[in-house]
């Protein structure tokens, strides 16, 4: 999956990186970007506006993989297990969020950035009140072993 990004993608990732380092989003820290097309981001569990405080004080790690068609194709974004317990996040780290996918029901747009994706994920955690895995979590993880979440389509 992680083929080398093309020159366009390279430039785009460079400028996103520059932007991120200058204005990192709240509660997010870029911990690894050595090879440019794989990023590891640390996400602070957000303070929830409502009870219970499900993720406060916890830290999660996100892995971002850029494909060579980035930003026309969405980046592959997954949590590094252990992933947060959330009805839209499988225990293998796959995330059910429309902006991470393109095609028919996908909400990805090349005008989105990793910065915005990280913010969306944090707000997704913040608004959750139901500490459960998605239905069929075990089945899904067994079936998807070692595969990209994009292959679910």
């Amino acid at each position, binding site marked *: 999956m992680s083929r080398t990004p093309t020159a*366009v993608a390279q*430039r*785009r990732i460079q*400028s*996103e990186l520059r932007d991120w380092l200058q204005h990192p989003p709240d509660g997010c820290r870029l911990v690894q970007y050595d090879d440019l097309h794989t990023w590891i981001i640390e996400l602070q569990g957000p303070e929830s506006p409502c009870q219970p405080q499900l993720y406060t004080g916890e830290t999660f790690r996100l892995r971002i993989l850029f494909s060579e*068609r980035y*930003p*026309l*194709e969405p980046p592959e974004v997954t949590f590094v297990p252990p992933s947060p317990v959330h009805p839209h996040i499988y225990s293998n780290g796959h995330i059910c969020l429309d*902006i991470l996918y*393109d*095609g*028919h029901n996908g*909400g990805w*747009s*090349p*005008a*989105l950035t990793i910065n915005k994706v990280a913010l969306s994920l944090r707000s997704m955690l913040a608004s959750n009140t139901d500490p459960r895995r998605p239905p069929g979590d075990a089945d899904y993880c067994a079936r998807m072993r070692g595969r990209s979440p994009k292959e679910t389509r």
Partner: protein
Amino acid sequence: MSDYGDSDYEEMSMGGDEGGYSDDEGFAYSDQEEGVASPVAKSSKKTFIVLDSEELRERLKAAVVQVVDLLCISDAEATRALRFYKWDLTKLQEDWFTDPDAVRQKVGLLDEQPSTRRKEETCKICFESYPVADMASARCKHYYCKDCWSGYVQTAIDSGPSCLDLRCPDPECKAAVPRTVIMAVADAAHKKRYEEFAVRSFVDDQRQLSWCPAPDCQHAVVSLSDRLGVAQDIFCRCGNAFCFNCKEEAHRPVDCETVRKWMIKNSAESENLNWILANTKPCPKCTRPIEKNQGCMHMTCSQCRHEFCWLCQGPWAEHGERTGGFYNCNRFKKAVEKGEVDEQEQKRQHARQSLERYMHYWQRWAENDSSRKKALQQVDKFRGEQQEVLSERTATPTSQLKFIVDAWMQVVHCRRILKWTYATAYYTFEETSGATKEYRERMAQHQEFFEFNQGQAEHYLEKLHHKVEKDLSRFLKAKPQPGAEGDGAGGSGEAGPSGSGDAGPSGSRDQQAAWNTFREQLIGLTDVTRIHFEKLVNEFEKGLDEALKEYDAPMEDEDPGASAAAEAAAAAEAAAAAAAAAKGKAAAAPSRRVTRSSKRRQSSQDDPETTALEEETGFWQCRHCTYANDLGDKVCSVCEQPRDATGGR
């Protein structure tokens, strides 16, 4: 001024081989030469139009042009708005003139481009800076460079028809990406795909348009019917006949629901019936197995020359009026009910009856279907090879052999109609327990009437099918030189011409005469059959109650002047007789026929006026009252007008 991102842009990218929507054809589906490809209903007005891809594109353009003119918006905006409104011009127009801004918001037709711009903008996709002249927006404030647009648009096109609803890449922005931008940035292959999606949506989104469901067929059909949602037979240019409503094979006069029920029932039960109706039947006389390899029900055993009906296996002599019989194989006869049977036996009998009843109708449905398929193969065969041979043998140019194709197509069409009338009869005349006596009587009357019409139609179809299948083979086999007539249709278990007008192998002049007679008879029969089926279909669609009522009323004079009056009258006579039969004088019609035809055989010989058509049908039509008189009679038995006075042919 830049080329991108302002109104000039639209003009620019519409240029060249894309061609603007500049056709002046109206959006309203106007007339075109087509729509009545049906062999039946030649006379009625068009009910549909078949369009090829070029014509379809023209219509799409015309639709857009109309909106451009009406709403004074650009081509690209009109296309988008129409697509959003599922090509419903009326609704779009209504909404637009109520609140144009609301429509613009809904569809995404924005006009937010800043009037003054910086010289350079940053592309929100690749984050590089470009001169504004090299950038574009979907008429909103979000600018992207040409390369990013191209990637964005082509990715969308690759992901399917949703590209027609493409919006500005900015997730917050609702601006619709206009067709013009797409045409300016996509490569040729993607442009082509985009246009294909557009045409597809044009057809798929409109209720009165539909694709021909035949595999690989590129034609679409516009239904001109004002009753959408009801079965409508369509005859595509590719040769496929389908129902506009349910997309199944054409099935007029039967409704879609009956077809659906019937097909489900068949798939459940036909397995059991298949073995009963295996491909062979023993000859009723010599019991040799016979394979039915032609479509006509009139069988002749190749061994003992016994002629019989494939359906009831009774002697054919009882089927044709020529031999004193009467065609009634279409009727389902209930087994004679016995007096004192115990309850168990009654139940068994009932179960057997209902299975037999279904078998009766299914068999006739299936046989007509396979006859239809064989006839279709015959048409191909005729067009492929036989046409040439026949042309040579009969010294007739192929252009004048179209009447044979017409006859075959009539057979194909009628077999299909006939087939479905059996499915519908199965449901219509089902035994309903608990019905009132009155209702039962009425239904019995309906059934009588329906079966009479069906029987008449089927009778002529059998004749036509026989003639075009068996009699024709004689001319195909005949050598240009006399004395070498073939010995029947070879290769099959049943064979041999058994019809009228034997063409003796005695000289080419005789052969020519026989050919001319054949031709005249076939054309006549095709017409008569067509009229009978038209009648069957029309009366069924009108409702049997209505049809019966009409025959109750005194007969009015037929409208004069029609060239096909004779044939029309033949059908009218049949229907009148049917009505009479349905009124409880059931026995009268068949018996009258028997006497009439036997009388005819004695007298027709000395009547030189008899035309080939009359010879074929067995009666002459009174021009005054349309009654079908015996060929022997000189005066009409009903209105007493002399035969000559009613107008010769």
